[in-house]
């Protein structure tokens, strides 16, 4: 199976040839790849080098924590790639962003109102957890669409708090 894997605007063509081989940038490479203890920790031996990384899924992408660095990779297979090409670009850019609670906690205050425009990095609300007040920020410019919680409410992990359009 062939994949196109993108990390920070750099794309890699990776073909999984069989259990022990991949082809990357037209180079056939022997790989030895195993999950450690059934955990999302992976040991990879490639061309003699030994690597170990945490690999976890996060919002349609993969996060790879390797040697103290975090890489975010988008992996799409050939089929997806073709569909995407047919459907036109820019699709992923639009749509709504749902701000979810990163941990259970208590909403201390909601700093925006529905219909209000916000900019990237603007603090949307404050959530208390582990005795700390944590600011949740907007990942992009947009307009506050729905605020689903109120101040003093307790929320569960991953509960949607508000939506940015």
């Amino acid at each position, binding site marked *: *199976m062939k*994949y196109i894997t993108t990390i920070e605007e750099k794309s890699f063509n990776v073909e999984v040839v069989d259990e022990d081989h991949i082809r990357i940038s037209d180079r056939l490479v022997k790989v030895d790849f195993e999950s450690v203890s059934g955990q999302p920790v992976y040991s990879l031996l490639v061309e003699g080098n030994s690597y170990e*990384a945490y690999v976890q899924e996060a919002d349609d992408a993969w996060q790879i924590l390797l040697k103290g660095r975090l890489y975010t990779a988008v992996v799409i297979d050939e089929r997806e790639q073709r569909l995407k090409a047919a459907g036109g670009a820019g699709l992923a850019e639009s749509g709504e962003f749902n701000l979810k609670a990163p941990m259970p906690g208590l909403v201390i205050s909601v700093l925006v109102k529905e219909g209000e425009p916000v900019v990237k990095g603007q603090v949307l609300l404050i959530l208390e957890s582990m005795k700390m007040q944590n600011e949740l920020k907007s990942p992009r410019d947009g307009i506050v669409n729905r605020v689903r919680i109120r101040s003093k409410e307790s929320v569960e992990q991953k509960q949607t708090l508000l939506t940015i359009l």
Partner: protein
Amino acid sequence: MFKKVLVANRGEIAVRIIRACRELGIETVAVYSEVDRQALHVRYADEAYLLGPAPSSESYLRAEKILDIAKISGADAIHPGYGFLAEREDFASKCADANLVFIGPKASSIAAMGDKGKARATVLKAGIPVVPGTEDVGNMTDEDLLKVAPTIGFPLLIKATAGGGGKGMREVTSLDEMPTLLASARREAQASFGDGNVYLEKLVSGARHIEIQILADTQGNVIHLGERDCSIQRRHQKLIEESPSSFVDEELRSRMGDVAVKSAKAVDYVNAGTIEFLVDKDKHFYFLEMNTRLQVEHPITEMVTGVDIVAEQIRIARGRQLSYTQEQISINGHSIECRINAEDPYNNFLPSTGRITHSLLPTGPGVRVDSGVYPGFEITPFYDPLIAKLIVWGETRAQAILRMRRALEEYRIVGVRTNIPFHQTMMDSHRFMGGQYDTRFVEERFSMNRSEDGSNDSEIAAILATLVAHQQIERSAQIVRRGERDVSNWKWVGRWERMHR
């Protein structure tokens, strides 16, 4: 001489104290909240009693209930650890009233030093320089504070009088934003210490946070164990500490040590305590506050001096003389501590909760881990995000940094996000390596986005992501034949036979 100690705390520090007691042949009593039933301090103690529901106010801050448990269990001493009831004068008094040895200073010393506002006044009287700020004692209203703020000047800090550990602390850059920040600081202080009082202090820029560990016995002997540099902070939370400080020379160490001893004597201090100073670029130092308790970062001092500070605390509380004179204390090598927090350094250091499914501790020469968690333990949102302290020792600072790097690289914790990558980035940063940092370093000059330093492994990351994604697709397509795994035992037998035929 007491024989059973109730440890009025949780997490790594409760474990640390239980270990010290066990090594001295003293029995231990743990207390715990409902979510901490399987916490390590409950598992390691000789006895354990339930306090109540998870929130601190209903469990670890319930002084009366803890005193009741001490009575029921027959404990004759209480170690408060840090945080919770550790710096509550009334709790120390109540222990004394109940004929329990409080392993810490006298209530009067806590009153004089534990209240940060009073402490400033006390040491000023003893002629020790303090950071300019509110010199008034105690219960100032918002109105008072807003009035005095411009005379101190901005930027300034709001700090919790009962506080420590950066909780209830806020930076203020203008009068306008001050009312909101006062409210949130008081709220956080109330939640953390059960006391919403705050005071103001000038923000000294380009300064280092350097503290002196002292020990004082009931016979009037007071010694210091050198300094710890705790300048690597984020939002006034210490993240990395080292001893000795690369900024402090022998002459400054000796002067600061003398002042620390003097401060302790000024309040007739007994047991372990820490005097925190701000030291500016010109090596002028200012008293910040005294922590009248065991400090989170005490192990780095233990590593370089060889003194077991918790064992000394117990010794002192038993009325015995210090095991060391000042002359017997020397600093050997260099130690660094990284606080491992359940926080995501790639997402604004947001706390992370969840069950730890797997962990692999770094071990080997010169590495110490003080931890209160283990695989299967759940990190809840109720307490501190501190889950472990990784401490290393090296003959030199450079060796300690190299050892810390290898230990951080070995450390695996699965199930919650941790700030280990933050520490790794820090240990690789040239400014940290050069010892060139101040208390604002993390917020002003530090970034998790490393510049290209030639060790970018993005191709390897791409291969890993692709292989994991591929595996997931294969799994969901159920084309992995069952029974193909776990044949290892059979394989061995086969090989064994081949070998011996």
